[in-house]
């Protein structure tokens, strides 16, 4: 609800009505313009334009900051949720995986309220119970890596799906490589992630 009580001039009134009509986000109530007597209509118009420009620039700056923060949060979320991959029958962290996990460490440090569930997977080769164990080993070695950086293990849980939920169907190297993985699910603190 716009408060028009302080509106003095017809120009200002029309501007504010326009401002009201634009709706969200609700703007700050403009500072009431003290109108010294004897100003010309031109002076009044200039003053209003200047004030509008000032508010626009504040809004733009706020918007840019918000967008930057959102971008950073989105990037942080992507960093957290990025899947990491493993070699055949292995649960050791490869150098490529290590870089991805170090980036997660930074985000997790900046977001102490975030909790993660590590979901371990295996490719279809091998027996199913073995692959469940292998998926658990992969999730466990990711958690071990993160806690080695001083992060609390209480923030992480894990579950293994073995070979049951392939990311890509198919019995070829491409599918197998995509299926040997740990996925990351944010289980708490996901609404307030900030960039690191």
């Amino acid at each position, binding site marked *: 609800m716009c408060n028009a009580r302080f509106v003095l001039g017809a120009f200002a009134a029309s501007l504010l009505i326009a401002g009201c009509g634009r709706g969200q986000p609700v703007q700050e109530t403009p500072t009431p313009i003290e109108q010294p007597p004897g100003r010309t209509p031109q002076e009044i118009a200039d003053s209003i334009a200047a004030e509008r420009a000032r508010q626009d620039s504040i809004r733009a700056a706020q918007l840019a900051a918000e967008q930057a923060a959102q971008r950073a949060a989105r990037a942080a979320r992507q960093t957290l949720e990025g899947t990491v991959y493993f070699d055949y029958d292995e*649960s050791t962290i490869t150098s490529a995986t290590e870089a991805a996990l170090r980036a997660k460490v930074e985000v997790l440090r900046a977001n102490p309220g975030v909790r993660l569930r590590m979901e371990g997977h295996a490719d279809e080769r091998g*027996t*199913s119970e073995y692959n*469940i164990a292998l998926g658990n080993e992969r999730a466990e070695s990711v958690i071990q890596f993160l806690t080695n950086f001083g992060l609390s293990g209480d923030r992480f849980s894990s579950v293994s799906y073995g070979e*049951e939920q392939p990311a890509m169907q198919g019995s070829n190297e491409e599918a197998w490589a995509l299926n040997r993985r740990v996925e990351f699910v944010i289980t708490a603190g996901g609404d307030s992630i900030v960039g690191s």
Partner: protein
Amino acid sequence: MRARHTGASLASPAGSSAGPAAHARIAPGLIAGILALLAGAATPPPSAAQEPEGQIPGVELTLLYENLYIPPLAILPFRTTGDSPETGALVHGIVARDLDYSDRFRIIDSLPALWNDQQGVQYAFWDQYGVDWLVIGTVERVAGSRFLAVELHDIVTASARARGRFPLPAPDDPGFRMAVHRVSDEIVMWATGEQGIAATQIAFRMPALGDPASKEIYIVDSDGANRRRLTWDADLAVSPAWSPDGSRLAYTSYKSGVPKIYEIELATGTERMIGPGGSGQQHSPAYHPHGGEISFTLTDRGSKGVVSYNIRDGCCLRMLAGGRAPNIQPAYSRDGRTLAFVSLRLGSATPQVYTMPSEGGTQTLLSPYRYGQGGYFTDPDWSPVSNQVAFAGGIVNRRTVGRYHIFIADLDTSDNRLIQLTREGNNEDPSWAPDGRHLVFKGERRNGLGIFIVDAATGRQRVLVANVDAEDTDWSPWLGNSGGAGQSPGNLPRGGR
């Protein structure tokens, strides 16, 4: 009298002079005999340099069962009194297939046109025809009740071996087929003195029809008929395990978000969680033979491995094989005193089968691991009648990746003699039948996936269910007393002798 081959001829293939006195066709110690034969016939193991890639040292790769005598059995078309010929043909078909699937007889299905059983069994005729056993059956319908009367005749001794009369539900009754299977097992018992496996079922899991992302538990009869779905969780349901009395089935479900062990009471369909509470993941349940305890794989922060848990009182979680490397897939021995399990302690790419006392204790490597060669061995299952452990695996290298076979290790031999039962495709999840002779497993062949059955005594394989992506096969105990899932037949009287 025609000379008869016997089980004894196994030990000396040239000798076939055993008469009626040596009437044991398939002796109880058959498999042991075969193993002994194999042990005697085994050539000295070649040196490592000569071994073909992927071959396991000390493993008998060839099935040498040609000397096993399979007695011919003729089964006459079943007569009917007061019932339709169709019912007689239906029952006859089930019994004939059961006897064939027992792998204890060679079924004679093309019978001579001149046979005449109206004036009693013509033993001399059947003897000339080369038949050892003759089955005669009649489906009787009296005042709304049905009976299946069967006779087993021993042609070699020219005498009736046994006859019995068994109540039979109507063909559209859910317990009909299981009642017929039970009669088939009775015939096997009369002829061999050993329990048949017709009245059994196999549990497994596979993608649900119409919902390929979910895995559900299914059950099928031993002859491949009567496949039905047991779980409707629309989630992951894996590793079904029969209780020792066949009345319950345990399995692991992800439906709570964390894999936990549940148990279904088959007669009522009611389900309960039987594992301990807590955050841990629970997999691979196996019942202790007394039924009041399970062993399973626990994966929890700071404690993972093979554990046991008292499901009767809901207490007493015990870590039996813990440690840093995963220990998984427990399987009890028939007396419950020993557990076989799989450990990844030698490397995540080389899982091996171990044994240990079921109270925990010294762990012994069972599978044929040799340093530098690797090897991938999982899915142990202990024979319900002997000290034989089946498992799946192979030497894994570039050429043999994913090529797993079914093996049996005989712990009663001094060197844990190994026999390889499959030779083609990929084979996993072996599970013993209650006769300790047949095994069910998941097989992959050039022409598709399926559930297979192999007879360890003859090496004969058959497809149980074709074209299904089934895993975690588990063979039930004999269900002649309980009736199994979805069945409600009464107890059958023992046939006369």
